């Protein structure tokens, strides 16, 4: 492919990914309310459009037209930048994720990945982890004590669970011997029985639990725990700036769904009679539903329970898992 062709293809891919994922992130809020409602025997949004489908549009109009308040004593530039960091890191992380298998359109083979770097997994996790600056800076800049508490909890929670994510993903990476998400996907091309989840069930569960903490979902959503610290880091935000935090959060959930499907659940390989492209969409949808399901089923936990779980349960299990994997591979 020529250089111009490469640039055009990359720009189109970036626009498509940005558009589709932010639309899905918006639609995710509707799905979340609907799923939670059915699990709690309510109806959820019903009034705007058939079955309340247009609720997303109504919410969008509300967020865009709401007054944008910047508190007087806040550190204004940082206060304004923080939500942009949240949304930007979520989308930059998607750049190294192969979203679908290669396909052909108008005679051109298209690789649905924006930047195919050979350290894909590390890049995605690293950029997602640097997303912790969004709530951290937001909380510290807004000169509000609830914001400050939210920021402190951000630093503690995201840093601690980053350790668990890294250690849990290490064992599958040892099996595959590559950091490229495409190599990891091809390693599982032998079908259902080749999925890494069968050889690394412990790592899969640890990765999911740590994923809940990293994307700030219930039962680990201590950063903006409504019952304790009003709205945490987002207390002083309104309108579109507030919305951007949540676009980032939902985009992160989708990224995490793709990561878990690619690393543990066979990625975009054909699954029986289901073609690969559909298979990965099904897996990501199920994982997204799983996030909502857990939110409906479990209560919040206390901060000390969160730390107890991370350092006394999950991290030792992750280390033992890595050691056992190493011993099995040596024998």
């Amino acid at each position, binding site marked *: 492919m020529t250089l111009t062709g490469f640039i055009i293809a990359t720009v189109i891919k970036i626009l498509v990914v940005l558009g589709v994922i932010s639309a899905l992130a918006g639609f995710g809020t509707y799905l979340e309310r609907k799923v939670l409602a059915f699990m709690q025997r309510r109806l959820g949004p019903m009034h705007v459009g058939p079955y309340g489908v247009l609720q997303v549009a109504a919410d969008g109009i509300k967020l865009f037209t709401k007054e944008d308040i910047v508190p007087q004593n806040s550190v204004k530039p940082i206060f304004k930048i923080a939500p942009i960091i949240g949304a930007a890191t979520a989308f930059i992380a998607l750049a190294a994720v192969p979203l679908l298998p290669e396909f052909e359109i108008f005679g051109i083979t298209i690789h649905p990945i924006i930047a195919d770097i050979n350290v894909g997994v590390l890049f995605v996790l*690293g950029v997602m982890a*640097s997303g912790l600056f969004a709530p951290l800076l937001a909380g510290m800049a807004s000169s509000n004590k609830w914001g400050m508490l939210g920021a402190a909890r951000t630093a503690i929670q995201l840093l601690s669970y980053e350790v668990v994510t890294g250690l849990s993903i290490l064992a599958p990476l040892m099996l595959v011997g590559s950091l490229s998400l495409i190599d990891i996907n091809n390693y599982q091309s032998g079908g259902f029985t080749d999925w890494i989840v069968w050889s690394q069930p412990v790592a899969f569960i640890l990765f999911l639990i740590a994923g809940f903490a990293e994307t700030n979902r219930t039962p680990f959503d201590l950063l903006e725990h409504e019952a304790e610290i009003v709205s945490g880091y987002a207390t002083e935000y309104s309108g579109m700036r507030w919305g951007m935090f949540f676009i980032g959060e939902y985009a992160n959930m989708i990224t995490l769904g793709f990561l878990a499907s690619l690393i543990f659940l066979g990625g975009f390989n054909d699954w029986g009679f289901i073609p690969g492209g559909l298979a990965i969409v099904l897996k990501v949808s199920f994982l997204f539903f799983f996030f909502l399901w857990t939110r409906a089923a479990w209560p919040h936990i206390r901060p000390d329970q969160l730390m107890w779980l991370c350092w006394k349960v999950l991290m030792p299990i992750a280390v033992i898992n890595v050691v056992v994997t190493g011993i099995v591979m040596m024998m």
Partner: protein
Amino acid sequence: MFEAMAFYFFSAVTIVMFWITVTSKNALYSMSALAAGMIMISGFFFLLDADFLGVVQIIVYTGAVMALYAFGMMFFDTTREVKENIRAPKLVFLLSGMTALLLVIAFVAPIVGDHIEALYPMVEGVENPQAVGIVLFTKYLVPFEVAAVMLLVAMIAGIILAGKKMDESLTLKIDDEFQEKGVQ
């Protein structure tokens, strides 16, 4: 052409960010600018095809080191300006400027004199992480293992220091104290 453009972009942004870090009187500006500068440095690694080191730069500096700075910041009022008590600004400027200049000369001299050569050049056809691994596990095996043991000791010590009071819940304890006071 793109590489040159990217290089100048990253250099300009990095220098501006670190300039803000040094000159700003607001601690929060300094911290954000430092983090942004650290991320921009990783751009240079990507330009040199050292993807692995670039990602490690992002993870280590922004994920771990900067978050520790942020912990320190929690003890200040970040919205107020810091009053620095510098008695001899000219002397400080001269000393730090001279140190920086010396460092630049020390690093640039071998490049200018063309006396720089790779002792362990990249093996052909080996990817980034593998190349780092080969050097770490052959030439630098002993320092690598010593560092690993030190980190393990630090981790265990950290868990023990922090874990002494992990079994009792602070929230419940405070509740009990309130109840006792209520009874009296």
